[in-house]
Every structure is written in structure tokens, then in C-alpha cells.
């Protein structure tokens, strides 16, 4: 009787450990930035939306700059401080290396078209270049 009781306790502890670690896993993937991760039907469409949003953010940025520049009379002093701060933070900024690499590569899947054997390679290249570049690029 005692042995069975012991075994059940062990089992309960074991199961609870599994559950706790599983919930930890889920929590570590979630930083409450996005409400839900949805499935994507067409990656290209989503990227186009991102491009459009990037453009509209730039319009807002122009508005902000205009507003600040209109408000401040001592533009020289402002520029001097901007220059000073830029010198300090410059080395810690994310670099656009993936962006530069992207524009150096050309005709990524052209070679693959000539040989069916390269088809798998093409998908591989596609997945990696597209995703890794963008991932690094946007998450920086």
C-alpha cells in the first residue's frame, strides 16, 4: 500500500515537472508584443504590407523632424549636440551588413533553373537568404 502511495506521489511530481517546464517554454517564446501569431497565406503580400508601412512611418518621421526644427531657434547648437551624440553611439548601432549582402547577390535562383537537381538547393537558398536576411535585418 505504502509503495503504491509512494509511486503515485512520484508520478504526480513527475507530471507536474513536465507541465511546469512546458509552460516555461511557452512563456519564453512570448514577450507580449503580439496578440497572436497568425498563419501567413502569402509571404509576399505580407512583405508588401511591411514595405508600405515602412513608407508611411517615414512620412511620420518627416513630420516630427519638421516640427522639431520649426520649434528650435538655435539650430547650430542642436546640430552640434546631435553630432556629439552620434559620435558616441555610432559604434553600438546595428549595422546594415545583411542589407548590403542582399544587394551584392544577384540572380539567386537562375543557376538552379538549369538543373532539376538544384531544385532542393533552390528551396534551401530561398529559405535561408530570404528568411535569414530579413530576420537579421528587421530584428536588429
Amino acid at each position, binding site marked *: 500500500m505504502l509503495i503504491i502511495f509512494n509511486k503515485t506521489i512520484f508520478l504526480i511530481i513527475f507530471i507536474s515537472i513536465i507541465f511546469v517546464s512546458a509552460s516555461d517554454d511557452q512563456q519564453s*517564446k512570448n*514577450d507580449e*508584443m*503580439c496578440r497572436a*501569431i*497568425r*498563419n*501567413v497565406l502569402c*509571404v*509576399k503580400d*505580407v*512583405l508588401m*504590407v*511591411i*514595405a508600405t*508601412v*515602412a*513608407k*508611411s*512611418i*517615414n512620412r*511620420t*518621421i518627416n*513630420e*516630427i*523632424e519638421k*516640427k*522639431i526644427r520649426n*520649434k*528650435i531657434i*538655435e539650430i547650430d*547648437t*542642436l546640430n552640434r*549636440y*546631435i553630432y*556629439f*551624440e552620434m559620435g*558616441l*553611439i555610432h559604434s*553600438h*548601432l*546595428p549595422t*546594415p551588413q545583411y*542589407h548590403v549582402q*542582399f*544587394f551584392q*547577390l544577384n540572380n*539567386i*535562383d537562375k543557376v538552379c533553373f538549369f538543373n532539376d537537381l538544384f531544385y532542393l538547393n533552390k528551396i534551401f537558398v*530561398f*529559405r535561408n537568404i*530570404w*528568411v535569414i*536576411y*530579413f*530576420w537579421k*535585418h*528587421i*530584428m*536588429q
Partner: protein
Amino acid sequence: MSFYYNSIEDLLNMNVPYELPTNFWFKEIQSNLRNEIICRYRNILNVYSYEWPLINQINRIQFSTRKYRDAPSFVDEVHSIIITRLLREWMQRIHSVIINLETKFH
């Protein structure tokens, strides 16, 4: 992008005695970055089952902590302009990469 998301967060959390008129726009940019760019991008990464870094694992712009002697009220403006400048460059990069995808893969 998360880098700039965090930097704007810092900017909005700066202790200024008055509400800055630009804060409204910065909030708009931040919510766009979050909902329209970072989250959409995570959706795409999810399709390819790639992991992404969490927002608190990403660094932010480390501005100097010293006060400007002759113009203490400038701090906010200087930070704002630096963030907007850098962010503009990145937005242009994202835009140009996405627009050029077609030419690279066909």
C-alpha cells in the same frame, strides 16, 4: 527594428515636465513598428519555423547621460532627431529590399 522600438520606448519614458507634441507621433510610429512590422515579420518567421529574439533581448540606443550645460531642454529634441534619422535609414532599407526581392529571385 526592435532596437528602435526600445529606443522610442526610452524616449517616451523620459521625465519631462510637459507632454511633448512629438510624443503623439512617436507613439504612432511605435505601434506601427510593433503591430505592422515586427508582428507581421514574426508571422512570416513562424511559417518557416524560425526563432526570433524577444524584445527584451534586444539592445537600445545608449545615449550619453550628461546634461547639456547651455541647453538642458535640448536632450529630448536631440534624442528625437537622432532616432528619427536612424529609423528613416532603416525604413528605406526595408522598403528597398522588399521592392527588389522580385528582381533578385526571378
